[in-house]
């Protein structure tokens, strides 16, 4: 008997020979369990991410074993490490190249707030230039924390409407960053 766990069906109406649920739930379930992360790793949090991806912590259990090093195929931008002000436009460009739906996770103190680098050359949190969905605290965070943050992203993906990009709140958020 295999102990592989399979994601349970979303809430719906079940009967003889049919199962009905809303498209939002089915799509959300599919998306949440096949997120393609783009690791934007600039420093030590990236080392923790390597551990998270490796066999011991194994992020692929969550359907994220396919790292996308092209932003065009990525669903989740994971920013891990200090972002210098000179790197800011590069990060923003990577975010702009991602297709909707897209999510952003700021891993570690530096990506979230600038961390110990409260100085002229370092961006004081990536949310100065791009919107962030989940912040993971820690300097660096342990792989468990990164996985916890990833599971929060999954919750967002599972429960958000299929066309988040068309909601007025999301449009407003993006325009506050000068995007679109």
């Amino acid at each position, binding site marked *: 008997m295999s102990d592989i766990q399979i994601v349970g069906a979303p809430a719906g109406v079940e009967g003889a020979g049919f199962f009905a649920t809303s498209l939002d739930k089915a799509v959300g379930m599919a998306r949440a369990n096949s997120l393609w992360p783009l690791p934007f790793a600039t420093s030590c949090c990236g080392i923790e991410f390597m551990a998270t991806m490796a066999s011991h912590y194994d992020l692929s259990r969550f359907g994220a074993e396919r790292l996308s090093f092209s932003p065009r195929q990525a669903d989740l931008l994971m920013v891990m490490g200090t972002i210098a002000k000179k790197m*800011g436009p590069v990060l923003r460009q990577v975010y702009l190249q991602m297709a909707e739906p897209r999510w952003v996770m700021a891993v570690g103190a530096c990506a979230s*707030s*600038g961390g110990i680098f*409260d*100085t*002229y*050359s370092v961006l*004081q*949190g990536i949310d100065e230039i791009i919107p962030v969905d989940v912040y993971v605290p820690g300097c660096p965070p342990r792989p468990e924390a990164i996985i916890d943050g990833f599971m929060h992203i999954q919750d967002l993906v599972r429960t958000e409407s299929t066309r988040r990009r068309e909601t007025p709140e999301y449009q407003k958020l993006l325009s506050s960053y000068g995007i679109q």
Partner: protein
Amino acid sequence: MGKITNEELLNNINTQFGDRVTVVGEPFGLLTLETTKEQISDLLGFLKNSPVLQFIYLTDITAVHYPEQELTIGVIYHLHSLVNNVRVRIKVFIDGENCHIPTATNLWEGANWMERETYDYFGVIFDGHPDLRRILNVDDMTAFPMRKEFPLEDPNRVDKKDYFFGR
């Protein structure tokens, strides 16, 4: 030990420059001289091209900001004579508002990036430099971050505001 002592080095400089170069001190055996921006090109050229001294290697150019002094910016040159195994440090103090000093790129190609860095952080303008623009910081930066009046902490920082700590 170097092949020439600081005393011999100083005698060589004094016969050429006299009182236009002054000795600041000799901390840790490193002869430290001070001169003016009018003399610095001649002095560097002499030290490099003198067949006896042969300071052919430019170790570093940097600057220091002393807001309490009349001439607020000190430009510091470190030279190394690989032949004689001896080093020397030269200081030039210039006005912080009108920060001009002649370039050393005509003597050492390596001075190019050192002067760009010094310009980037202190706003020292090296006259005659072929391409004096910022080298490390973002191009649209308007301040010179190593000057003392520049705030140490980034003003955009939000999580260290006093009201988070009941102050």
